[in-house]
C-alpha cells in the first residue's frame, strides 16, 4: 500500500462516514486511555459511528495528521470536519455541544463513562484490511 493510497483511504473514510473516529485500538478494545474516553463519549450518545484503528501501520497516523493538521490520536470528524481530540470531545460532551452537533439527546448521566467496556460499538469498526485488501 502506498502513502497516497493510505491518504485517499483516510480522505474517503472521512467523507463517507458522517461520524468518523480515528483511534488507537477499537471501540471494543481501545489501546489508549484517550481513545477509550473518546469512544465512550460517542457510545454514551448512542450515535452510530465508524472507527478506524490507526495502529496497524505507522503511516496511517502520519498521513492522518498531515491531512488534519492535528498531531495526536484520537481524532473525531463529523460531517467531514475535524471536531477534535479527547480534550475537546470530552469538553463538548460535558457541555452538551456534542449531542447538539450530532443531533441526539444528551443522556441523563452527564459524566463521560470512564471506560467503554460495557459499550457495544454502534457500528462495525472499519478495518483497513477489509477496505483495501
Amino acid at each position, binding site marked *: 500500500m502506498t502513502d497516497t493510497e493510505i491518504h485517499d483511504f483516510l480522505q474517503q473514510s472521512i467523507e463517507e462516514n458522517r461520524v468518523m473516529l480515528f483511534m488507537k485500538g477499537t471501540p471494543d478494545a481501545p489501546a489508549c486511555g*484517550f481513545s477509550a474516553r473518546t469512544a465512550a463519549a460517542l457510545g454514551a450518545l448512542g450515535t452510530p459511528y465508524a472507527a478506524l484503528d490507526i495502529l496497524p501501520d505507522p503511516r496511517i*497516523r502520519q498521513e492522518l*495528521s498531515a491531512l488534519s*493538521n*492535528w*498531531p*495526536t490520536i484520537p481524532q473525531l470528524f463529523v460531517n467531514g470536519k*475535524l*471536531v*477534535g*481530540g*479527547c*480534550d*475537546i470531545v470530552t*469538553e*463538548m460532551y460535558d457541555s452538551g455541544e456534542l449531542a447538539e452537533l450530532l443531533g441526539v439527546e444528551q443522556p441523563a448521566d452527564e459524566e463521560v463513562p470512564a471506560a467503554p467496556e460495557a459499550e457495544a460499538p454502534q457500528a462495525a469498526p472499519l478495518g483497513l484490511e477489509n477496505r483495501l485488501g
Partner: protein
Amino acid sequence: MPRPEELQHRIESALPGARAQVQDLTGGGDHFRAEIVSDRFAGLSRIEQHQLVYGIFGAEIGGPIHALSLKTSTPEGTTA
C-alpha cells in the same frame, strides 16, 4: 526530556501575554496537561486554539512529547 517549566516558557513566549499552567501528568516527562489563558484565542474555535498551541511544538508532539492535553480559554473565560 521536556520539563513542564520548559513547555510553560515556550507557550508563554510564543503567545505574548498568555498565562500557562503545565503539569507533568505521569512524572515521566512525556504526558503533559496545559491550561492556557490567552487573548490570542479570542475569535478562534476550540480546534483553532488547540492547533495554535500544537503548532508551537510541531513534530515534538507525538515524539518526545507523547501527549499534550489542553484546556484553552480567553481572559474573559470563553472557550469558543
